[in-house]
């Protein structure tokens, strides 16, 4: 019997992309996706359930669909993406309810994969140059998003202890760049002049968006219990990242940086949340070797990721935005999936 998979956050970039990649695998029998928003990509056979963000109906869905694998991609990793209340609701309450449903008595779930972020390590001058998965952060979290991710992480840890029969994988992803995804860094690097903090040139790592979905699919199809860092090989100084992308830099003052970026935010030029500012000051790198030792191969190194991003940016400047636009239409999707008029198994 193939895998029966539940994907949370199907309406987000990651949920949709992941579902699209999983659909291509014949050993995946069924995918059901959950979100308040509609999918952003055309999906062939994923069933979409529109549900409120804290997953209160999860218990019913898990039992009714008999899913054996849960892919929790719906953790928000940018502090300014959502108001604090919604962030807490999604990251903390959402994760809690999801794991409660997965761990309920008689639950068919045998595997839980959580897409988290290396934000949980923070960025500080006391940090080791490469965080191993077991290393604690060196400064208490200051932003709401970091606190909520840490709280979600503690739920995942408890769940793994309470449910030894479930394979729990938590992947901590580093700053993502790619052709389609929008992150704080991709926004910053799209500016004609890229901000830096005067006197600082931190070491950073990047992960390509294809490696993000690749790692999640890999964890779905193989049993790799534990916490793993995901980052492209190597590190790059921020100045070199900007050089590869072909951008000049503008310095922000090293003192009161938070105030200096406020006008930029108000003018809607760029929103640099506090966790990104501390990355631009101290940088962060993680040890990515444990996940590689499980057999996973990256397609891109850190420099390769930045280079690929630079290429797609050049194409975009030449021909304009080329990301495919798609609008989910319930009736159309239902027709293609369930109508007897559709001829299935066409070879």
């Amino acid at each position, binding site marked *: 019997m193939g895998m029966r998979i539940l994907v949370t956050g199907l309406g987000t970039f990651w949920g949709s992309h992941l579902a699209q990649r999983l659909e291509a695998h014949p050993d995946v029998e069924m995918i059901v996706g959950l979100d308040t928003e509609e999918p952003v990509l055309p999906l062939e056979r994923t069933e979409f359930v529109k549900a409120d963000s804290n997953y209160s109906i999860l218990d019913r869905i898990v039992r009714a669909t008999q899913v054996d694998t849960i892919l929790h991609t719906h953790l928000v990793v940018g502090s300014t993406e959502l108001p604090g209340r919604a962030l807490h609701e999604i990251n903390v309450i959402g994760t809690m309810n999801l794991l409660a449903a997965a761990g309920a008595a008689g639950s068919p779930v045998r595997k839980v994969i959580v897409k988290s972020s290396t934000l949980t390590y923070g960025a500080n001058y006391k940090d080791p140059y490469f965080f191993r998965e077991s290393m604690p952060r060196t400064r208490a979290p200051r932003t709401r998003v970091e606190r909520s991710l840490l709280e979600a992480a503690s739920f995942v840890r408890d769940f793994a202890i309470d449910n030894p029969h479930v394979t729990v994988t938590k992947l901590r992803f580093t700053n993502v760049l790619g052709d389609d995804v929008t992150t704080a860094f991709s926004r910053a690097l799209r500016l004609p002049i890229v901000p830096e903090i005067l006197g600082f040139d931190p*070491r950073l790592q990047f992960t390509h968006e294809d490696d993000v979905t690749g790692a999640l699919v890999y964890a779905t199809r193989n049993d790799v219990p534990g916490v793993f860092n995901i980052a492209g090989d190597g590190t790059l100084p921020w100045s070199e990242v900007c050089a590869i992308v072909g951008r000049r830099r503008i310095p922000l003052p090293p003192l009161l940086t938070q105030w200096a970026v406020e006008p930029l935010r108000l003018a809607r030029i760029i929103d640099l949340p506090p966790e990104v500012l501390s990355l631009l000051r101290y940088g962060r790198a993680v040890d990515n070797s444990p996940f590689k030792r499980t057999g996973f191969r990256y397609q891109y190194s850190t*420099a390769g990721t930045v280079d690929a991003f630079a290429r797609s940016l050049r194409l975009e400047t030449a021909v304009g935005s080329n990301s495919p636009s798609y609008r989910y239409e319930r009736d159309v999707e239902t027709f293609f999936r369930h109508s007897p008029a559709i001829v299935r198994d066409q070879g």
Partner: protein
Amino acid sequence: MTELPESDADATPPANPPTNPVTSPVTPIVDLTEAESQVARMVALVPAPRPDRPERLDLEPGETDIRRGDVDAYGRSEHMREIARRLYDPMYRHWFRAEWEGLEHIPDDGGALLVANHAGAIPADAPVIMHGIETELERPVYGLAENLFRAIPFVGTMWSRLGGVAAHPDNAYRLLKDDRQLVLVFPEGTKGTGKVYRDRYKLHRFGRAGFIEIAMRSGVPVIPIAVVGNEEAMPIMFKSRRLAALTNLPYFPITANMMAFGPLGAAMYFPSKFRIRVLPPVYLDVAPDQERYPRAQVMADSDRIRDAIQDALYDMLRTRRSVWFG
């Protein structure tokens, strides 16, 4: 699950970066072979990718056409080091007139933890040792230091590019074990540099001997280094506790240099003669990568190395005729 073929296992090191022999050496060249060897030395100092270590977090073979700089995984840039070496060379050669003995104790290959005595309000020992080994042995040296540097704009970046690494045990372990590099550490720390002139050449305690545990865990030898001359380059006469509290520094020194040259003395060394003796490597008789090591053994090894450096210092001072001429 099938193991994919090792793609970078058979990768060849990238071609030597183009080096212009006309601009590279500034020191007068006696003959052409020496010029060639200087160029070769500068090329050799660029750490070549090691195909046997696929998880090395460094310049990947296929990335030579992407990368715009040569900053490595620890923030060190060989290019910046080369410039710094060129600028520092007159200081090293003509001001401190550094002389080495026992350099053969430092291996040409593989990790080793260099342990030296530390002194001076702004210690001159770290740049002299790093410069000396890099020019003589053509090997990079990473110097462990207080992580506070990282928080200071410009200084932190410069310090990192020139081979400074925050003294986190895991950073040292990676450098020694995974990347097989030379790591320089001053176990006395700021207690050594903050010592006043009348305590010269008396080693302070070696902290909690964390450096021994790092060497044990990474399975590398400890190489003790005794430096004479550094204590007279910028000696501290008094320390102001009030100014230290005010400036948030570990100590606020009033140096003899400041007394002699006024404010200029804050950045000016006396031309004391540097003699550096490298002692035979100490191999720690334990298995690497243990969870913990017996405290008693760690302390005993730390004391053994401390005593070796102290004895060497006294021995060298016995034969020293002049602070300025050695």
